[in-house]
Structure formats: structure tokens, C-alpha cells
């Protein structure tokens, strides 16, 4: 089955008010070409669920976010995304979770469970600030009171991977799968952008079976997007583009953001890649050292 589509065709599947989960972690392996396409689209009032990086800040700056479910929003090389900070300090509706709670909520949704128990969040303001999150008492002799992390159900998940075949089998060649499979399991519709669409038999040449993070049963659409994670990293192919993130992070005031948008978001993604220095430059962005 051929599930390939263009990013425009993918965005046409989105609706106002959807709950969208975004894979990756901070400034690492984010589906940024899809995020930019959302910024260019008319879709609005989204609920975004993610371990956030510039995806969150950019969508906030573009006015696309009605509600945010997050554990953090960080650019890694810059501790806090200033666009996200500005949105939060202006009162953006949000639910702030512990990182592990978010994983648990996605996992519960993927397993079709109403909740999963955990201690994370108890005895902190995660619990007090979120009265919609209840506790449950163990039915066993220990009688322990645990936090019942509710399922975080997604309408759509978008993730970025190194390689995929046209049917949606996905391969992650970097050192960390993050929680991309959890996001896909938690979502009704799952879309992947990838550095390369390859013949199925090439997946085995690129890496061992364990690198094949998502099988086609968890993927509804595949978009080929070389450098699609830029300015975030896509190990082992390219690192975080620190210079670009600094430029992005400096464009907080309305005039500066408008100029950033004019330069980087007004055209196609091919225009974007040219504007950020072209393939020759992008191939030389060094691996990030943490």
C-alpha cells in the first residue's frame, strides 16, 4: 500500500480544534516541516500535546494553539523557548504534567485504558493544579494511594524519522526513540515525515530490526521531507542548528516574528531550506554534544 502524501495533503486532513500530539523531545527530531505547514495553514484552535521544543513556540507564535499539554518546552541549547514563555505569561490555557505522567497518559490511551497508576505528581502542585486528575486507592492489602493518570487521547500524531517505506514502516537511526511510538499508539490518525522514503528491503540495510520503531499498522501517511526536522536535530544525520535557533528565539516581538515569518514561513518548504542555507549548509550542521 502506498501511503505517501505531500505535506499539503496531510495538512488538509487536519481540522480546527483537533488534539495533535507531536513526537521528538525538546530540540530533537521534531517534525518541523509539518509544523511549519500547520503555521502556513488556516487550521486553528489546536490542542498540542508534546515534550516541547520549537514546535510549541512556533505554533504559539503563529496563533495556532488554544490549549497545551506539556511537561516542558525547551530548545535544549536554550533552556526555555521564549515564544512559549511569552504565550504562557499571557495566560495560554495549559495542563502542566510531569514528563513520566505524560508518557503514562499516552500509554494508557494506546492500551485503551482509562488511566494508569503512578506516584509521579503526588505531593506536588501537579496534583493540586489539576483537580481533574484523581487518585485511586490500591485494592490490595498495601492500600497505597496512587495518582490515576488519565489517558491522553490524540486525534492526530505527527513524528519525524530517518527512513520509512511507502507503506509506513519507519526506522529511527538516532540513539533515542523518545516516545514517538507512544504518540502514534495514542492517536486516531498517525502521520510521519521522514528524511528519505526507501524501498522496504533497504530498511534492513540501514540498521538492525530494533531500529524499526513503527510498523505500517501504526502509520496512516508518510511525507518525504529531507531536513524535515531542521532546526532541531535528526541524529545521526544532522545536529541542532544552534545559529538558527538563536535567530528564531530572538524573534519574539511582533515585528521580529513577522520578519521571521516573512523570511522562513511565507514560501514552500523548499524555499525554507534555501533560506536557511541550502542542503550544503544543512549537511554540515554538526552533531550536537549534550
Amino acid at each position, binding site marked *: 500500500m502506498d501511503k505517501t502524501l505531500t505535506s499539503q495533503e496531510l495538512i488538509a486532513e487536519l481540522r480546527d480544534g483537533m488534539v495533535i500530539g507531536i513526537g521528538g*523531545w525538546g530540540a530533537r527530531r521534531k517534525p518541523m516541516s509539518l509544523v511549519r505547514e500547520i503555521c502556513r495553514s488556516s487550521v486553528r484552535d489546536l490542542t498540542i500535546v508534546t515534550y516541547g521544543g520549537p514546535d510549541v513556540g512556533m505554533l504559539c507564535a503563529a496563533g495556532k494553539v488554544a490549549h497545551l499539554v*506539556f*511537561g*516542558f*518546552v*525547551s530548545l535544549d541549547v536554550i*533552556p*526555555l523557548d521564549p515564544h*512559549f*514563555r511569552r504565550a*504562557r*505569561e*499571557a*495566560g495560554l*490555557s*495549559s495542563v*502542566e*504534567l*510531569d*514528563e*513520566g*505522567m505524560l*508518557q503514562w497518559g499516552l500509554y494508557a490511551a494506546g492500551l485503551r485504558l482509562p488511566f494508569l497508576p*503512578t*506516584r*509521579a*505528581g*503526588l*505531593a*506536588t*502542585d*501537579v496534583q*493540586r*493544579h489539576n483537580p481533574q486528575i484523581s*487518585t485511586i*486507592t490500591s485494592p490490595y492489602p498495601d*492500600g*497505597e*494511594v496512587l495518582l490515576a493518570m488519565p489517558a491522553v487521547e490524540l486525534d492526530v500524531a505527527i513524528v519525524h524519522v530517518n527512513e520509512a517505506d511507502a507503506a509506513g514502516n519507519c526506522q529511527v537511526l538516532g*540513539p*533515542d*526513540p*523518545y*516516545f514517538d511510538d507512544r504518540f502514534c499508539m495514542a492517536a486516531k490518525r498517525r502521520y510521519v515525515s521522514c528524511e528519505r522514503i526507501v524501498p522496504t528491503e533497504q530498511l534492513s540495510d540501514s540498521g538492525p530490526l530494533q531500529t524499526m520503531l513503527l510498523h505500517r499498522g501504526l502509520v496512516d501517511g508518510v511525507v518525504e521531507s529531507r531536513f524535515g526536522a531542521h532546526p532541531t536535530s535528526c541524529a545521526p544525520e544532522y545536529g541542532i542548528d544552534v545559529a538558527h535557533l538563536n535567530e528564531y528565539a530572538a524573534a519574539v516581538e511582533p515585528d521580529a516574528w513577522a520578519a521571521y515569518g516573512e523570511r522562513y514561513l511565507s514560501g514552500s518548504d523548499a524555499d525554507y531550506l534555501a533560506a536557511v542555507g541550502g542542503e550544503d549548509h544543512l549537511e554540515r550542521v554538526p552533531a550536537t*554534544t*549534550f
Partner: protein
Amino acid sequence: MDDMPPTLAETCIVACAESWRGDGEILASAIGVIPRIAAGVARMTFAPDLLVTDGEATLVATPVPVGERETAPVAESWMPFRRVFDTLWSGRRHVLMGAAQVDRYGSTNIASVGGTPQHPTRQLLGMRGAPGNTISHACSFWIPSHRERVFVERVDVVSGAGYDPAMWDAGVNRSFHEVRRIVTNMAVLDFLTPQRTMRVRSLHPGVTLEQVQANTGFPLDVAEDLTVTRLPTDEELVLIRELLDPTGRRNAEVRDA
């Protein structure tokens, strides 16, 4: 260079490293420059069983220096974030991290300051992993600037659980919770009092108890056997200066007075 006396940063690094003494074969997670160097010191001297990462998903056979490195480290295993979560919920971890605010009971805040939960005056990092960390395993904190704005009577947001009894509902399991130690640029503090309130355990060389109290927004307990924080050994100084932080990034975080 190794004849130079220890700097304050180096004394702080060793005080941070001491957090992990006796922890055995668990994951030592270190957030920030000085904690990272400290984990390396502990691993390479008195706590050789500790597991340490490259700051990403690799457990490394030898601790890596902070900043750029010329050779790829030798991997001894794999520690992606999902394994970090499993490891921390299982308790086999001790994290040393920062905090924007700390109160008398060791409740900590890295999330936001001021305003309301929906509308903070100043957004900080968010909860990150602090709630799960603090209720699951030992946590220690590194505070590079000991002052009243950090050591507050009441934190604006409790992202890391402390010993404040008002925060612990009946039936919640407290047995895995431990705020082990707080290291600042002035002193080492712990919570080994009957009420589990903050206590000065040692003063860095040249610092007085009065100075520490004057920079703390609540009354401090004091250890009966209050001591002076130990200085780095020659071996520790060599590790810090030549191997773990050859470019001196530690000096950007804390300087001699």
C-alpha cells in the same frame, strides 16, 4: 596548574560529588555543568559503581568532559529517555539538579514564579521530571547562588516534593522520597532533623553561619557537628582540571568571592 589551590567551584564540585557516596550501582543523573563534573568525579573516585551517561542516551564506560569532546565515548549500555523513566520509577537513580526556589522543607520549584498556575508571572522550565524524581528516589540540588530569592519561606510552585507534611495526603507512599543534600556556593545543607527541615551541615572555607542565614529566607537548623566543607584531594583536582572540565566551564557558574 595542579599546584593552584582549589577554587570555590572545585570545592562545590566535590561537595556535589559527595551526594552520591555510597549509592552503589545506580544511575547518577546530573543536570547542569557542575553536577555533570561532580558525577564524573564521584564515578572516577569513591563511587566507581555509578552509571553515568553522555548527557544523551548512552551509558558511558568513562565519564565524558563537559562541552565539546574530541573522541567518542565508549558505550557500556543504552539509556534512552524511556529507560530513564523506568529506572527512576524503580528507584535505581539519584539525580542532582538545580532549582529556582527551595523552601525550609526542601520543596523545590523549577516550573514558574508568581501569578497563577494558568497565568504565571514568569514561566520557567515547567515541571520536567521533578515530581516523579522526587517521589521515587533520592534527589539532591545544586544552587550556584545562595540568596533569599532562592531560599524562600514558601515556593511559588511545588514541582519537587519536599518534607512539608501539608503536601502529603494520607495513604501516599513516602518511603522512596528523600531530599538528600543541597550544595550552594556557601554551604552544604541537608534535612536530617526531627521535623525534616533544612539544616546547615558544613560551611565552605571562609563562609560564616551568619552569612548563610542572612542569605536564607527562613530560619536554618544547624548540625551539632557543623564542619567546614572538605577541600578536593589532589586526585580530584587533576580529574576536574585535566579530564572532566579542561576548558574551565565550571568557572562560569561560580567564582571565588
